[in-house]
C-alpha cells in the first residue's frame, strides 16, 4: 500500500512538475515574447512526463499483479504465478524470483501431501524427492522422509510382530494339537522366530522334552516288562509328577518281580502234588476197572442162572397147564363115555324099530309085486292100448323088488350094528375105568408141579434181588470209573497247568540278585 501511495504521489509530483514547467514556459513566452523556446521546453517536459507515466503504469501494474499473486499464495492457492512476458530486466528478474519462491513452495506442498498420502496407504517407497530442495525445504523433506521411514519400519515391525504372533500361535496350536493326540515327538522349528518368540518356542520345545522323556523311558521299561524282562527300570532323575510315574513304574516292576518269584516256587510244588495225584488215580483207575470187569462177569453168570430158573418155572407151568388140560380131557372123556352108553341104548331101540319098519317094507313090496303082475296081465289084455301101462307095471315090479332087496340089506346091517353096539358098550366101560385112573395120576402130578413152580418163583425173586444188587454195584463201579477218570484227567490237566505256569513264569527274566532277595 505504501508503495502504491508513494507511486501515486510520484505520479502527482510528475504532473505538478509538468504543470510548473508549462506555467514557467507560458510566463517566459508572455513576459519575454519568446515562442519557440517555451514550446520546445513544454514538448520536452510532456515527453518526459509520458515516458515517466508509462514507466509508472508498468511498475504499478507489476506491483499490483505481484501483490495479488502473493495474496493468493498466502491464501494457499499455489497455482498463482507472476506471468511476465518481458525480456530480461530488473522486474523480470524479480518476477522470476517471486515465481521461483512460489515454485519451491508449490513443489514442497505437493510432494509432502502426496508422500504422506502414499505413506498412509502403505506405499512407503514414495518419498519426497530431495533434488531441488534447499535449506529449510531440504530439512523438512529430510524430516518428512525420516518420518515415512519410521512409519515404514513401525509398520513392518508391526507386520513382523503380527506374523510372528500368528506363526507362534499356529506352531504352538499344531504342537498342542498333536500332543493332545498323544504325539509328543512334534517340535516347533525355531527358525523364522526372533527375540522373545524364539525364547517362547524354545521353552515350548523344552516343555515337550520334559513331558516326553519320562514317558519314553517308562514306555521302554514297560515294553521290556511286556516281553517279560524285569531287569530294567526308570533310571533318570525327574521332578514332580514325572518322578511319581518313575516310582510307580519301578515299584510295579519290583512287586511283580517278587510275585513272579513266589509263583515260580508255588507252581513247582503244585506240579509235584499234581504228579502224585496223577499216579495215584492211575492206580485207582486200574483197580476199579478190574472190579468192574469182575462184576460184569458175575452179572452175566447170574443172568444165565436166572434164565435157567425162569425156563424151569415156565416148563413147570407148562406141564401143570398140560396136566390140568389132561385132567379136564379125561373128565370130558368120562362124560363122553356116559353119553356114548346112552346113545348106544338109543341106537338099540332104534335098531328094533328099523327091523320092524323093514319088515313092513318087505310086505308092502311083495304086495306091490302082486299088484304089478295083475296089472301086467290086464295090460296085455288090453293089447296095444295097454302097452304103455304094461311098461309102467313092469317098472313098478322092478321097484318093488329093489325095495325088498334093500330092506333085507337093512335088516342085515341092523343086526350087525346091534352086535357092535354091544361090543362098544364093553369097550366104553373099560375106557371109563382107564380114564378114572388117569385123572388120579394127573392130580398127583399137578400137585408136584405146583410145588416146583412155587419153588422156582421164589428162586427167581432171590435171583432178581441178587441181580439188582449186582446192577447197583456195577453202576456205582461205573460211576467210580468215571470219577476216577475225571480225577485222573483233572490231575493230568493240573500237571499240565503247573507245567504251563512254570513255562509262563520262565517268560519273566528276573534280576537274579533282587529275585533271591525277594524270596529269601
Amino acid at each position, binding site marked *: 500500500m505504501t508503495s502504491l501511495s508513494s507511486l501515486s504521489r510520484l505520479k502527482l509530483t510528475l504532473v505538478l512538475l509538468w504543470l510548473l514547467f508549462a506555467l514557467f514556459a507560458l510566463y517566459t513566452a508572455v513576459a519575454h515574447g519568446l515562442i519557440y523556446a517555451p514550446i520546445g521546453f513544454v514538448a520536452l517536459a510532456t515527453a518526459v512526463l509520458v515516458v515517466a507515466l508509462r514507466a509508472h503504469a508498468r511498475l504499478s501494474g507489476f506491483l499490483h499483479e505481484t501483490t495479488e499473486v502473493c495474496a493468493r499464495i498466502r491464501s494457499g492457492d499455489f*497455482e498463482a*504465478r507472476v*506471468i*511476465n*512476458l518481458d*525480456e530480461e530486466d530488473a522486474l523480470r528478474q524479480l518476477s*522470476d524470483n517471486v*515465481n*521461483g519462491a512460489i*515454485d*519451491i513452495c*508449490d*513443489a514442497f506442498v*505437493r*510432494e509432502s501431501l*502426496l508422500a504422506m498420502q502414499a505413506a498412509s496407504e502403505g*506405499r512407503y*517407497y*514414495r*518419498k519426497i*524427492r530431495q*533434488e*531441488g*530442495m*534447499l535449506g529449510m525445504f531440504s530439512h523438512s523433506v529430510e524430516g518428512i522422509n525420516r518420518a515415512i521411514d519410521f512409519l515404514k519400519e513401525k509398520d513392518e515391525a508391526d507386520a513382523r510382530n503380527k506374523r510372528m504372533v500368528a506363526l507362534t500361535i499356529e506352531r504352538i496350536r499344531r504342537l498342542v494339537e498333536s500332543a493332545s493326540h498323544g504325539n509328543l515327538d512334534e517340535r516347533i522349528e525355531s527358525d523364522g522366530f526372533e527375540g522373545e518368540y524364539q525364547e517362547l518356542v524354545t521353552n515350548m520345545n523344552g516343555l515337550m522334552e520334559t513331558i516326553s522323556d519320562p514317558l519314553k523311558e517308562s514306555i521302554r521299561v514297560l515294553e521290556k516288562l511286556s516281553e517279560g524282562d524285569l531287569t530294567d527300570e526308570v533310571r533318570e532323575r525327574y521332578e514332580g509328577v514325572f518322578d511319581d510315574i518313575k516310582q510307580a513304574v519301578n515299584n510295579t516292576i519290583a512287586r511283580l518281580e517278587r510275585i513272579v518269584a513266589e509263583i515260580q516256587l508255588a507252581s513247582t510244588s503244585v506240579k509235584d502234588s499234581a504228579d502224585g495225584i496223577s499216579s495215584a488215580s492211575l492206580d485207582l483207575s486200574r483197580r476199579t476197572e478190574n472190579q468192574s470187569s469182575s462184576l460184569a462177569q458175575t452179572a452175566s453168570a447170574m443172568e444165565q442162572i436166572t434164565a435157567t430158573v425162569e425156563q424151569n418155572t415156565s416148563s413147570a407151568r407148562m406141564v401143570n397147564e398140560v396136566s390140568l388140560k389132561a385132567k379136564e380131557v379125561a373128565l370130558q372123556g368120562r362124560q363122553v363115555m356116559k353119553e356114548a352108553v346112552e346113545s348106544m341104548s338109543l341106537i338099540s331101540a332104534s335098531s328094533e324099530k328099523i327091523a320092524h319098519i323093514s319088515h313092513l317094507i318087505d310086505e308092502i313090496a311083495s304086495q306091490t309085486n302082486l299088484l304089478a303082475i295083475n296089472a301086467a296081465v290086464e295090460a296085455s289084455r288090453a293089447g296095444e292100448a295097454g302097452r304103455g301101462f304094461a311098461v309102467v307095471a313092469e317098472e313098478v315090479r322092478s321097484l318093488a323088488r329093489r325095495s325088498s332087496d334093500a330092506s333085507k340089506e337093512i335088516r342085515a346091517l341092523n343086526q350087525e350094528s346091534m352086535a357092535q353096539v354091544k361090543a362098544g358098550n364093553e369097550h366104553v366101560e373099560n375106557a371109563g375105568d382107564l380114564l378114572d385112573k388117569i385123572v388120579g395120576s394127573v392130580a398127583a402130578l399137578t400137585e408136584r408141579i405146583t410145588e416146583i413152580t412155587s419153588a422156582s418163583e421164589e428162586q427167581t425173586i432171590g435171583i432178581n434181588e441178587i441181580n439188582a444188587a449186582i446192577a447197583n454195584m456195577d453202576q456205582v463201579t461205573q460211576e467210580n470209573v468215571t470219577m476216577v477218570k475225571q480225577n485222573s484227567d483233572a490231575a493230568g490237566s493240573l500237571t499240565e497247568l503247573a507245567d504251563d505256569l512254570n513255562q509262563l513264569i520262565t517268560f519273566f527274566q528276573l534280576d537274579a540278585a533282587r529275585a533271591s532277595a525277594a524270596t529269601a
Partner: protein
Amino acid sequence: MAKELYLSGKERVMTDDEIIVSKTDLKGHITYGNDVFCNIADYSTKEIIGAPHSILRHPEMPRCIFKLFWERIESGREIFAYVVNRGKQGDHYWVLAHVTPSFDANGKITGYHSNRRKATNAAVKAIKVLYATLLAEEAKASDRKTGLRNSYQRLQEILKEKGVDYDEFVLAL
C-alpha cells in the same frame, strides 16, 4: 509424424538444486513455465505460454509412457516419469518428471503441474534400455494404434516380470 525433428545430439544437464516447473491447462497447453524451463529448452516465456507441451517431445520417448502418463493424471493421480526432452535448438535433456493434477476447492481438476528434477546417470542408463525396447515395439507395428497397444502391454509384462508396480520401479531407479 510431421517432418524429421532436428537433433543436435548435445545434452543439457540440470544442476542438483534446480527444478523445472510448468503448468498446463486440461489439454496440456502450457500456462506457466519457470526460468529454468526457458533456459534449458531455449524458449522464451512468450513462446511457451499457450503452446502445447508436446513442443518438447523427443523422438526417443515411447508413446506408451505418455499414454500411462495421461491415464494417471486424468484419473487424479500423480506420476513420476523419466523423460527426455528436446529444446528449441535440438539439444536434449533428461529429467525425472513429477506430474500432478491441480484441484479446485470442489476437488475438480483445473490443470496439471509438473516438477522436473535432474535424472541421475544410472537412472537414465536403465530407463534408456526400457524405452528402447518399448520404442522398438512401437516401430515394429504396422500402425500407431497397435504399436501403442503392444508397447503398453509389453511395459506391463516387464513390470510383472520384475514383480513391482510402475511407481515402485521408477522411484527405485
